[in-house]
């Protein structure tokens, strides 16, 4: 087990180095140099240009620049935004809770509906329920989620007026951002109705962001369930006279969940990518919207830093999933 952990830990270093190389080259591949970008449309006189280039360390060889970059990264210095002049890491930290809250609720939605739907579809194979679950999940899997969001806004917010169109909280309330998680902050505040407002702002974005994970989880659970139900030990359990519910919930589901856990872990990347679109539609002040805006504003330090942090996060979560998988299924860690 320790050997497995050590091996898996060592594997993330090449990936991390690769990603820093990618984000490092991002800025160097852009036509024009960073000084001109910083100067913007107005241009800059050559003497000042040289001076700034030197100050930014751009006159040194690429390898030295890369070493400098990676040293800064390890110190937690990801540069400053061209637009707001604030440190990238600090901006990320203030925006990340919003994305985390949204992703978490989306995941709860996906698991809450996807897992039971998959289990029932697997158990009742070939029935109308099975076919409808498969149809709905394939449709969900094919869904352009940015349009799905627009459609839900059109129906629930515009036509029915049930939920707000955008943002995290009604402008009527003013909440101190202690934790950055609106639900928790609103719950702890004295404002009446703030929690309800925060919750109603979360519903549509969570559904939109959770749709693809929901489809994937339902499909995976169903096929995993089908496989497990054919195993000999399930037949033995049935033959022993255990109730069908016990056989399915205790005996079959436990083993069927192993691949599902992996899939849920892998959805973290899907969620963060989906957050880019979902946050843009719902004007959700999170990391995804921030990156889209920075790309449109050509705020390269933010693009660079944002991509670096998000991909490092994904690598880290994948590592966690692998470790968890090794614990759930000891055959993996001994292989």
């Amino acid at each position, binding site marked *: 087990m320790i050997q497995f952990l050590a091996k898996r830990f060592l594997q993330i270093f090449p990936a991390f180095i690769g990603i820093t190389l990618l984000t490092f080259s991002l800025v160097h591949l852009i036509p024009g140099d960073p000084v001109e970008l910083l100067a913007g449309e107005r241009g800059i006189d050559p003497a000042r240009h040289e001076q700034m280039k030197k100050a930014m360390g751009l006159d040194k060889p690429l390898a030295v620049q890369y070493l400098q970059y990676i040293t800064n990264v390890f110190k937690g210095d990801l540069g400053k935004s061209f637009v707001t002049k604030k440190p990238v890491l600090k901006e990320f930290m203030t925006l990340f809770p919003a994305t985390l809250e949204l992703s978490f609720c989306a995941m709860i939605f996906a698991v809450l509906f996807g897992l039971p739907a998959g289990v029932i579809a697997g158990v009742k194979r070939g029935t109308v329920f099975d076919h409808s679950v498969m149809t709905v999940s394939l449709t969900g899997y*094919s869904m352009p989620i940015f349009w799905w969001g627009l459609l839900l806004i*059109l129906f629930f917010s515009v036509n029915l007026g049930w939920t707000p169109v955008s943002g995290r909280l009604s402008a009527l309330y003013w909440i101190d951002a202690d934790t950055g998680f609106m639900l928790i902050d609103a719950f702890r505040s004295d404002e009446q109705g703030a929690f309800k407002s925060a919750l109603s702002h979360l519903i549509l974005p969570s559904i939109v962001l959770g749709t693809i994970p929901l489809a994937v989880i339902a499909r995976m659970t169903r096929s995993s369930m089908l496989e497990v139900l054919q195993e000999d030990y399930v037949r033995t359990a049935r033959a022993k006279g255990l109730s069908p519910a016990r056989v399915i919930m205790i005996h079959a589901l436990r083993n069927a969940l192993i691949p599902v856990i992996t899939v849920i872990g892998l959805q973290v*990347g899907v969620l963060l990518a989906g957050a880019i*679109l979902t946050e843009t539609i719902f004007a959700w002040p999170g990391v995804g919207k921030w990156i889209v805006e920075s790309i449109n504003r050509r705020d390269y330090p933010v693009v660079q830093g944002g991509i670096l942090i998000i991909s490092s996060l994904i*690598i880290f979560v994948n590592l966690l999933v692998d470790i968890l998988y090794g614990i759930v299924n000891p055959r993996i860690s001994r292989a």
Partner: protein
Amino acid sequence: MNQAIVIKEKNIPITENETVPPHPLKEFWKYFSENRGAVIGLYFIAGAILCAIFADIIAPHSPFNQYRSAILQPPFWMEGGNTEFILGTDDVGRDILSRLIFGARLSLFVGVIVVTLSLAAGIILGVTAGYFGGFYETVVMRLMDIMLALPSLLLAMAIVAILGPSLQNAILAIAIVVLPHYVRLTRASIIAEKNKDYVTASRVSGAGPLRMMFNVLLPNCMAPLIVQATLGFSAAILDAAALGFLGMGAQPPTPEWGAMLANSLQFIQRAWWVVTFPGVAILLTVLAFNLAGDGLRDALDPKMKR
């Protein structure tokens, strides 16, 4: 002894149907057509291709022509709509149906180019990595792992940020992003095939590495790649639409489905048709490719055959 068997076999009355195995295509169609969804998907794709080819003839209007007198006109079955603009018009008076028909051309074009590019590059990298192995394989596969660690849309956005927003750059970005899937799939099949007897036989008879890789091994690794390529169409169309929606793909006034949705949020209260129809087009096309891909997998994978 041998002759006896031959004579005996000749005497057995068998109809020709049973002795001659069905043509591979015929057999494939038999399994494929058992899956009703896949057939529907295939018909839809065929329809979309026809739309794309004959867009100039089918479309009632030019996708760029702005009818100033008919701005935000609703579809024909609603009050204020007429059959001149069957699905209504957008905020500058362009016919939505015509834009959707021309959009089919763009989306399928994106799919074809992305799949061709990534399939070609993926096969070359995957086959060589699987065949040669060693340090080269490690480098290629680690690189692919890094690319897989990033969400595809984020990586595509990063590439577009470097190259600048346009449909061509979006296509290139998506082709790069989906590359790892093809490389991994090809490599895995090559490794599975590499040690089989027929491969050893052709090596012994003196086949060179190029012939070994692309003439001997590759044809036997195509089935999963065909499936992945079909599913790759849907991913490419979806990603291109997402980039178009974010303003990082096709630029206005191009009638690309995603780009058509980009500014539609502001009309959501007044004109639902501007928001709805482009999305329906994306959803149905992507769904059709996914259905067909699932059917292909069932038909091509012998393990799934019942």
